[in-house]
């Protein structure tokens, strides 16, 4: 018994052949529905949290043992909420694609409300000045992508795995797409 027979691919294909135009159009529509609702949820979260990327995956061990690779963080970025020492912020540095998740350890706020602050990873021995852009000594509010508010372990490891093995990603995505398009309810 082959794998194709086991998964009854032939039956699925027979299903597909039996579909008329209306039915196959319906399948395509429901597929588009899945994609667009996922996009809507993401964009909706962006509006509610004020952050350009409301959910991030931890990619490095610099905050261990609090966060490990593959943990999920939920961010908010409300402009009126002040930054304070001890908060975990996600920030972008010029010349680096990947945002960094570290803790604020030093902060100076001027009378006009402008803030400059310094960050450090819990698991690092030194502060982040070496990670910032050359000549940059402080972060300001515009560098912040969000502030960590919620934590969910392990879930993000799937995306790390998919990014490290792009072939696996495309295989999984195409199998899912085929399944949704061909499967008859």
């Amino acid at each position: 018994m082959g794998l194709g027979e086991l998964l009854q691919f032939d039956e699925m294909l027979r299903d597909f052949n039996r579909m008329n135009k209306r039915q196959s159009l319906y399948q395509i529509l429901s597929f588009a529905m899945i994609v667009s609702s996922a996009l809507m949820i993401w964009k909706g979260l962006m509006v509610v949290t004020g952050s350009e990327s409301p959910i991030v995956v931890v990619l490095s061990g610099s905050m261990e043992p609090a966060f490990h690779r593959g943990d999920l963080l939920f961010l908010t970025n409300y402009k009126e909420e002040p930054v304070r020492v001890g908060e975990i912020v996600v920030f972008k540095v010029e010349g680096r694609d990947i945002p960094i998740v570290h803790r604020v350890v030093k902060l100076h706020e001027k009378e006009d409300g402008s803030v400059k602050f310094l960050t450090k990873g819990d698991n690092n021995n030194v502060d982040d000045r070496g990670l910032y852009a050359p000549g940059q000594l402080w972060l300001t509010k515009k560098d912040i992508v969000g502030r960590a508010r919620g934590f969910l372990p392990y879930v993000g490891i799937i995306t790390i795995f998919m990014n490290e093995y792009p072939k696996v990603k495309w295989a999984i995505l195409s199998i899912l797409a085929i399944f949704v398009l061909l499967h008859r309810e």
Partner: protein
Amino acid sequence: MHTVLTRGNATVAYSLSVLACLTFCCFLSTVFLDSRTTAHVNTVKVLVKNVPDYGASREKHDLGFLTFDLETNLTSLFNWNVKQLFLYLTAEYKTPDSVLNQVVLWDKIILRGENSALDFKNMNTKYYFWDDGNGLKNNKNVSLYLSWNIIPNAGLLPTIRSLGSHIFKFPAEYSIASV
């Protein structure tokens, strides 16, 4: 129609939803708990120097030195949804230049199961107490307090300031002697 795929799919989907539900209940059971408690902080030795800050601008900045006592019992903060406490000691003060300055001087990670009744005497700070200018000398109102950030198994990441802080002042003269 019971293929390996449909059976596998149903099993995985069901166990994942049970897991998600349990995780959410775990989060709900601890989200309304009060995580405040008292911490007694005291400074022992305080002095200030004026030296070039090579880490930042190379200009001469005020650099404070202090040793502190810390006594607190955080055992009550731990429950089944607390993986780790991140403790940090903050010095907060005002200068003519800035309305708010916060510098973390010391921190400590306490994992669940580790000793959380702390009693430190005459501790050195872990990090340098650099001011962003010359605002430490003769500063009469520097408050020192402990805070913690709770890292759950799954849930919110609150930062909580302890009840009770210590206010101290820096001397009016720079200290010349090496520490």
